[in-house]
């Protein structure tokens, strides 16, 4: 069975229909890249998957369970699904170690004595073991974003959601974050990511989804989607993002 099953999803903000009849299947181990113009509903789709927005129609099933913002057990569900945003949102008053171990400790995933080991493992994955005692404020944007990823990894999620995680970074810091995500992909993590990095989508994703006006306009294998787009909208999007 697919890990994520979205069927006929509808989401509105008041009168504005932001997601219109979206259906999407994500298998275990899939790397799905969502692309599309600003305002096409990419972030909203991710937020729905994480139960951050209530939905007006259709269904989202993750690991066989229906997901909604009002579901019982939303907390436990979120402990199994990591999400990283454009803004890193590290907790400024905790050092890196505490940022990474806060949730595993508070949710009872591990005991305090094992917390440091867990943090070391997660930070090693993102290449920041040496920053374990640093304050967020002392880190570069790229480093902060990698800590944010490590913070999710420490929860041992089954699914990771990334929303334009490199968009707020200086160009020279983008690579280090993408590399971490590539490593995670190679380890078999299931990931859904919204990105403007076409090369990353082409090289790492096994599925690309093009959203347009709240719909999935086109989806398929990255080579086909980016190399031989079918719809004029995707063609226009790709040629505009190449510049």
């Amino acid at each position, binding site marked *: 069975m697919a890990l994520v099953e979205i069927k006929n999803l509808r989401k509105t903000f008041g009168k504005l229909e932001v997601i219109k009849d979206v259906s999407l299947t994500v298998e275990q181990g899939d790397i799905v890249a969502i692309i599309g113009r600003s305002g096409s509903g990419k972030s909203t789709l991710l937020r729905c998957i994480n139960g951050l927005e209530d939905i007006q129609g259709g269904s989202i099933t993750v690991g066989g369970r229906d997901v909604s913002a009002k579901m019982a057990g939303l907390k436990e569900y979120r*402990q199994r699904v990591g999400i990283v945003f454009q*803004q890193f949102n590290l*907790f400024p008053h905790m050092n890196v170690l505490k940022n990474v171990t806060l949730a595993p400790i*508070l949710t009872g995933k591990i005991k305090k004595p094992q917390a440091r080991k867990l943090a070391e493992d997660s930070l090693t994955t993102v290449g920041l073991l040496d920053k374990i005692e640093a304050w967020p404020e002392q880190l570069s944007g790229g480093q902060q974003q990698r800590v944010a990823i490590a913070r999710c990894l420490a929860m041992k999620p089954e699914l990771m959601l990334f929303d334009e995680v490199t968009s707020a970074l200086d160009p020279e810091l983008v690579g280090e974050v993408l590399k971490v995500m590539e490593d995670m992909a190679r380890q078999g993590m299931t990931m859904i990511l919204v990105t403007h990095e076409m090369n990353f989508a082409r090289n790492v994703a096994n599925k690309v989804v093009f959203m347009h006006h709240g719909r999935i306009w086109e989806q398929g294998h990255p080579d086909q989607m980016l190399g031989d787009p079918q719809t004029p909208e995707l063609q226009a999007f790709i040629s505009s993002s190449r510049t």
Partner: protein
Amino acid sequence: MLNFRPLWRYEDAFIEGILTTLELALIAGLAGLALGLVCALVLGRGNRAANLLIRSYIEIIRNTPPVLQIFIIFFVLPRIGLRFPPFEAAAVALTLYFGAFVTEIIRSGLDSIPKAQVEAGHCLGLAGWQVFAHVVLMPAMRNIYPSLTSQFILLLLGTSIASFISAEELFHTAAVVDSRTFRSFEVYALISGIYVLMVIAFRLLFFAIGRLAFRWPVAR
């Protein structure tokens, strides 16, 4: 000629007055802090009736003289069967007074924390109270620490209005000693000095606590 000597026999009374003043300030300070925290949290939940109640309380306190508030509690409430001795009446009045201002301060502190921080906490699977206690509280406290401590200093000085209902704090003691010794200048100079020293002591204490509690670097 200045002559402080006649005041010496009243040393014990002054010490008693200082202690009562400190006691009043600390009791009203802590109780008001708790009251303000609860009110601020309830305000955040957006229940209409509760909000109206708390808003009215705040507006009444902020728009009437503190002396009037203390009078109402001491002289008017007994009419409906609520009788307090002077110290207790003063403590209640000052708690209500401090709590109203603290509510506003804490509310602004909670509002100063970006929604994204709260969301990040929820996304990690934390419960609502855990997000509040671990994610929101400390940064919010840091943001409001200067106004909160200044408000406490105002409370400390404001305990002097308890003398209006003869609670035996420092200012009341001074008035009594003045009426016995007729050394007004010396008496009030002395307690001015004492108030200043108390304020300085608290400011130093708050500075030290702030240094210890808020160590993380912040963006400038």
